[in-house]
């Protein structure tokens, strides 16, 4: 009984905040509502007896990604106020698409025989670590290579291309507008 009430609260928080993320007119509000969604997901992980993933979720998502997104918003908008527009278009067609997807998924879930009750397991974070560094070591190592590639890629994409140290061939340069070179370039 108590877990049904908890599930209802978490589900309502998740769906309402997710709706606010995609319908909010202000981009900063969207980012903050996404923080509510991610925190509610952490509570859902706790209900599914995954406390380590829940703490990772809080630290990495609600701590890291929301901060990163807010930085992205603030760096790329130059308004004096915080009413940053977040326009939507094609709302009708997008609604049809998402409702059709939801119907498809729900139909598949309803027609599949699924377990009704979870088996009782012991929550063991040490066993999780053994699983990662034991049978799944290869995926772990590939992931570290990927993170290195992402770091290099993000720096290469976002770095400011100075005229003095231009490593790009002239025909490939994206910022052909000369006015983008002056101003705040140090």
């Amino acid at each position, binding site marked *: 009984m108590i*877990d049904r009430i908890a*599930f209802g609260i978490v*589900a309502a928080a*998740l*769906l309402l905040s*997710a709706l606010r*993320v*995609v319908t909010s007119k202000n*981009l900063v509000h*969207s*980012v903050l509502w*996404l923080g509510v969604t*991610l925190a509610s*997901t952490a509570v*859902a*992980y706790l209900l*599914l*007896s*995954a406390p*380590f993933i829940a703490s990772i*979720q809080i630290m990495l998502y609600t701590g890291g*990604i929301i901060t*990163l*997104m807010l*930085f992205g918003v603030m760096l*790329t908008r130059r308004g004096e106020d915080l009413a940053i527009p*977040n*326009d*939507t*278009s*094609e709302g009708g*067609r*997008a*609604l049809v*698409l998402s409702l059709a*997807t*939801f119907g498809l998924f*729900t139909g598949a*879930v*309803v027609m599949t025989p*699924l*377990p009704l*009750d*979870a*088996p009782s*397991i012991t929550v*063991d974070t040490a*066993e*999780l670590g053994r*699983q990662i560094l034991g049978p799944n070591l290869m995926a772990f190592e590939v*992931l570290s290579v*990927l993170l290195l590639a*992402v770091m290099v*890629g*993000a720096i290469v*994409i*976002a770095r400011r291309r100075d005229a003095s140290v231009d490593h790009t061939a002239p025909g490939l340069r*994206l*910022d052909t507008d000369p006015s*983008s070179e002056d101003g705040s370039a140090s």
Partner: protein
Amino acid sequence: MPLAAWLILAAGLFSIGLYGVASRRGAIGILLSVELMANAVNLIFIAFGRYRGDHLGQVFTLFAVALTVAEVAIGLALVILLHRVRRSDERVDEVRELHG
């Protein structure tokens, strides 16, 4: 709780994220909606792992979380580049810089 309840909740989250991806015009708005969809998928991994009774779902979710963070870093780098080139990322459907 039956597993189907968790799956339908995650399907709802995924569909809301899909609506956001299809309706938003700004790059950051689309990135937020993609986050919602990735979050729904993580929830499905955890739920299946819980009802299987082992730790494999949690292992997979850890990898998926790292991938999502990498995706956000690349996405925001692209947004900043877009902003530098075009002075705006509010109409990503008009970006044509990569057309050969």
